């Protein structure tokens, strides 16, 4: 009896052990049915700031200069003058150059980028005039100095120019050359001899 009991107990232990092992094995073969899978997610965000980039003239920190030289050629001397009379009823689109010595016929490059919707551009001249000491040449918007192309170049001291954005809110405008023309015929009375200067500041902004 005791012998049988030991034998049966041993069998029981073996059988129960096999059953336990079988259960564990089934678990490791869990994928025999549907397969194992696990998932996880990651959120990513890109934050884009509102920006407006405006460049007038050469890249970098230059402040380009354009000038008109109204000195007739040949220069007026105390000899008998045989040259042409300094123009007073015509524009002076010539003799224009920038400060770094690259004559470009008054052409100033322009670029405007914005990612913030409709952008406006304004041009304001210091003192609203060309100044030489106590003397000045008032700038009458659209008369004293004209600007082209009118599609991109705002009138100095005139109304702001509006640039519509595309469907995505982007404004990208550029021009290979803004041109500026001085109209001495509109200046009355004629200014005294001298060098008249001003600085035009362009400001781009979004509403």
């Amino acid at each position, binding site marked *: 009896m005791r012998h049988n009991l030991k034998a049966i107990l041993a069998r029981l232990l073996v059988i129960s052990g096999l059953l336990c092992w079988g259960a564990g094995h089934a678990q490791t073969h869990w994928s025999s049915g549907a*397969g194992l899978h696990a998932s996880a997610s990651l959120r*990513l*965000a890109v934050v884009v700031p509102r920006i407006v980039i405006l460049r007038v003239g050469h890249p970098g920190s230059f402040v380009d200069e354009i000038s008109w030289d109204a000195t007739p050629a040949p220069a007026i001397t105390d000899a008998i003058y045989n040259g042409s009379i300094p123009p007073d009823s015509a524009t002076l689109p010539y003799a224009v150059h920038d400060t770094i010595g690259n004559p470009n016929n008054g052409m100033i490059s322009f670029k405007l980028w914005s990612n*913030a919707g409709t952008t406006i551009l304004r041009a304001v001249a210091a003192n609203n005039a060309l100044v030489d000491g106590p003397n000045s040449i008032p700038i009458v918007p659209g008369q004293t100095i004209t600007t082209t192309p009118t599609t991109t170049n705002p009138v100095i001291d005139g109304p702001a120019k509006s640039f519509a954005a595309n469907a995505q809110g982007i404004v990208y405008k550029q021009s290979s050359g803004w041109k500026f023309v001085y109209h001495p015929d509109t200046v009355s009375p004629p200014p005294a001899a001298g060098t008249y200067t001003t600085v035009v500041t362009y400001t781009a902004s979004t509403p």
Partner: protein
Amino acid sequence: MAFLLYNGPMKRFFFIFFAMAMVSLPVSASADVKTLGDRALKLRIRVGDNLQTGVNSISFQVPGLQLGSGTPVVSTTTLDGASGIYKVRVVLDNRRLPTGTARLTADSSTPLACVTTSTCGATTIPFNKISWSVRDGDNFELASQFSGGAGQLLHQQTVTDTSPPDPRKGWRYRDYVQFRYANDLFLPAGSYRGRVLFRADHP
């Protein structure tokens, strides 16, 4: 079975013993191997922190003066478990699986969408603008940028009976990832968000 036919004084003991053995069986058999956090877990993918409190987020702050320049923008979001410049930890745990090949794939088919619609409307950023580098090459090593599609293979491992794992940890494929945004688009201002789903499969 022979012991069931035994009809002696130890019958009660045997039945109790056998009953205990039978009761113990379902404990392991019923474990949900898919449940995150379960010690019995067989396959697990973690992307981000170790807190398991939800989906982690990382962001790319584009400098205004570099917008659209093509200079990549690195995410500076630091999640729990980061390693230096590698801000996101990814871990694939594969415990005691039979032979076969496990695969880790990404679904980035839904692009990042504008969430500040007043400024960026319906503009989207495709996920193929997001790339990464890994610290060790132990995970995410099979690609270096999202495809913008589903089922992109990032990692795979073949398990054999001759390569038994650590019985406690199984096979662990861990790495640390630095994500970058390509920044080659002149985008409308705003915030764009998207979600990538990573999936590990062991067929």
